[in-house]
């Protein structure tokens, strides 16, 4: 039976390194299958998160050959043959152990997003076309690969100032919901730090759900922020009427 060679990161906050494992290669095998094989036969304490194994839950996020990937969706036969497969934890988040990182920060950011606030006395009818875009954002499986690849978080570590693509997508889903009454541009500008995104589209490239994060979510939100906070005409209108958009 053909064999695959994997170099898997083993270690924790105190340090670690790549360790080599060999596993029998099966047809259609994904990297997570190989990791499970290692767990079940060679290294029972190898830490990895996973759940659905069907690219629907976003648990098994890691880096394969340096690229953010879902382990369950990365086929071994799609990787360069004859070379070891390097599997490492997400770089943007603190390591817990082996392939598991501390992603708690994401859940803290989520709590700060002003919640869905339905319009009072509205009729709950809308066309499918009106929610196709919102449904695109709601496909997000919270794998945090976009957070991992985003250089604001990955290279500059600005978790203090930037919510990351995942949560801009979530805000977009709320802002474009036909029944939502709230305006979140102040949150986007001041808390989510949307201005820090300089539209390199790395997040869109890694999204396993094919959400067009930058073009469909972030750019329209940036425009709303500009309209509300920098547009001189609107600023004047606001000054005169004392009203904000959405009120």
């Amino acid at each position: 039976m053909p064999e695959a060679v994997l170099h898997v990161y083993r270690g924790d906050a105190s340090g670690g390194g790549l360790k080599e494992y060999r596993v029998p290669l099966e047809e259609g095998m994904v990297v997570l299958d190989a990791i499970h094989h290692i767990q079940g036969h060679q290294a029972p304490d190898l830490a990895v998160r996973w759940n659905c194994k069907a690219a629907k839950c976003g648990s098994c996020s890691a880096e394969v050959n340096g690229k953010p990937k879902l382990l369950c969706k990365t086929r071994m036969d799609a990787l360069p043959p004859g070379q070891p497969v390097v599997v490492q934890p997400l770089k943007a988040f603190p390591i817990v152990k082996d392939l598991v990182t501390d992603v708690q920060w994401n859940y803290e950011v989520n709590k700060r997003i002003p919640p869905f606030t339905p319009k009072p006395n509205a009729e709950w009818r809308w066309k499918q076309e009106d929610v196709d875009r919102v449904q695109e954002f709601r496909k997000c499986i919270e794998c945090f690969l976009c957070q991992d690849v985003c250089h604001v978080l990955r290279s500059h570590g600005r978790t203090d100032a930037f919510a990351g693509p995942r949560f801009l997508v979530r805000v977009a889903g709320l802002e474009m919901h036909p029944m939502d009454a709230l305006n979140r541009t102040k949150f986007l500008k001041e808390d989510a730090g949307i201005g820090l995104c300089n539209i390199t589209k790395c997040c869109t490239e890694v999204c396993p759900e094919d959400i067009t994060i930058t073009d469909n979510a972030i750019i329209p939100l940036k425009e709303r922020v500009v309209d509300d906070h920098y547009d001189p005409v609107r600023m004047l209108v606001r000054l005169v009427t004392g009203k904000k958009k959405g009120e």
Partner: protein
Amino acid sequence: MSERYESHDVDVLVIGAGGAGLRAAIEASAQGARVGVVCKSLLGKAHTVMAEGGVAAALAHVDPSDSWKVHFKDTMLGGKMLNNWRMAQLHAQEAPDRVRELERWGAVFDRTRDGRILQRNFGGHSSPRLAHVGDRTGLEMIRTLQDFGVHQGLEVYMECTVTKLLKQDSRVVGAFAYWRETGRFVLFRAKSVVLATGGIGKAYTITSNSWEYTGDGHALALGAGAELIDMEFVQFHPTGMVWPPGVQGLLVTEAVRGEGGLLRNATGERFMERYDPKRMELSTRDMVARAIYTEVKEGRGSPHGGAFLDISHKPPEMVKKKLPSMYHQFMEFANIDITKSPMEVGPTVHYIMGGVRVDADTGAATVPGLFAAGEASGGMHGANRLGGNSLSDLLVFGRRAGAGSAAYAAKAPGHGVVDPAQVAAAERELLEPFERASGPDPYSIHRRLQQSMHSLVGIFRTEQDLMKGIEEIVKLQAEANAVRVEGSRAFNPGWHLAHDLRNMLTISEAIARCALQRRESRGAHARLDYPNLNPELGDVNSVATLDGEAVRVSQSPLPRMPDELRALFATEPAGVQS
């Protein structure tokens, strides 16, 4: 004693953060309770996320003649009349409100032309009844509940495993758990506890379930002295992927058939004609799963041992819009374009109808202070669950268990006293595997259990196989008690499995013993040696309890349906009315 551990005091402790757990937590919190939610994974990753086809509710948006009574009747007939009638009634009556409520909390369902929630066909439902979002309805549901819940002040304890319920006399007063990340122990004191831990699929080789589904709630309930009912009813979903090996068992949504998908065998025949000519592909899951199994067994299977499921006669754009994740799943995992070629599918363990015996209205288990909802509870689905009735079950009975547990907590005199001896025993049980110099490893025991359950307590059963299965399980229990774990307590999957394995073994024994006791074929329980439905057994639930470490089974009478509901079934053929 409790000073030695990190400890948390809540009014209501919810174990499990899928649809049922989150809905229970939201309701308990809305009733004024301080709520803690404990889950084994990260928030939002529970198996609800995998639910695809939709949530069943008689909204009557597509078929105006649909009503709760028709939904109730479909559910009871699908469950071969073994359902708890009161649960089935509440479920059918309340599901529409629960779905509308979800929409008010931000869920975005697919729409009808006139802008209302769209509904689709599903097996065993006599009208298009499933509100859905393409084929990712569960994701929509869990995310909506999660985002609504976090703004309600729920305290969420992620990646934390409860290993024992703690009792003061007869009453449940808390839970003992460990943090998966560090392996440190943690104590929860609670006035009431809701079990919403989902299913048991990981006891079988081929399953749609993830690693979490190890019968934790079922085993915790047994350990606390509660009763389980109807554990013999394990649902094999007819359509799991059969190839490639790594994704064997992965769910292929029933929505494929709901949207017009056809089942064929190797000869090209639409074989459901021979099994259920009236409903064909949209027959109930028990029927379709056995039909596919039989076709394969009799030599008419597809190349990789399944049946062909074909949706390629539908317009490709429609397939991609209504079944997007199926399209991607087959494209990426099997190199198959489902808009052009058929899929290969076969039965996969998906759901357990049996579970904790609960009061229909409050979710109260048979032990004071303990509640259960969702897949961990029993009764709602009888001998076979209809597709789409799980998501609605989670919402209806999650809410009810949340209300029930909050009401119980409000009346409770205060937190109970935690017994140091129980805590010490729970701690010992977890630490022993590290202290043994030698012993079997948990992974190999798990593989053997899965194989035994699949081959001996599977889709078709016989007395001989079941006896052998029980013997095997008891043997593996002894081995599991001597298991050895390597490494440290920090995020150690081998250690985690060593504990989960005990739960799987306990519930496997319950399944096998209940299956042995029920000498008939009904719904998902098919006995080759008793191939027919026995009307006398239509009036009894199987009951499982724990006696020391051994599972004891008995029977108890089914709650009797009131005459006005019974009248709904007057026109049905004899036998199903019992």
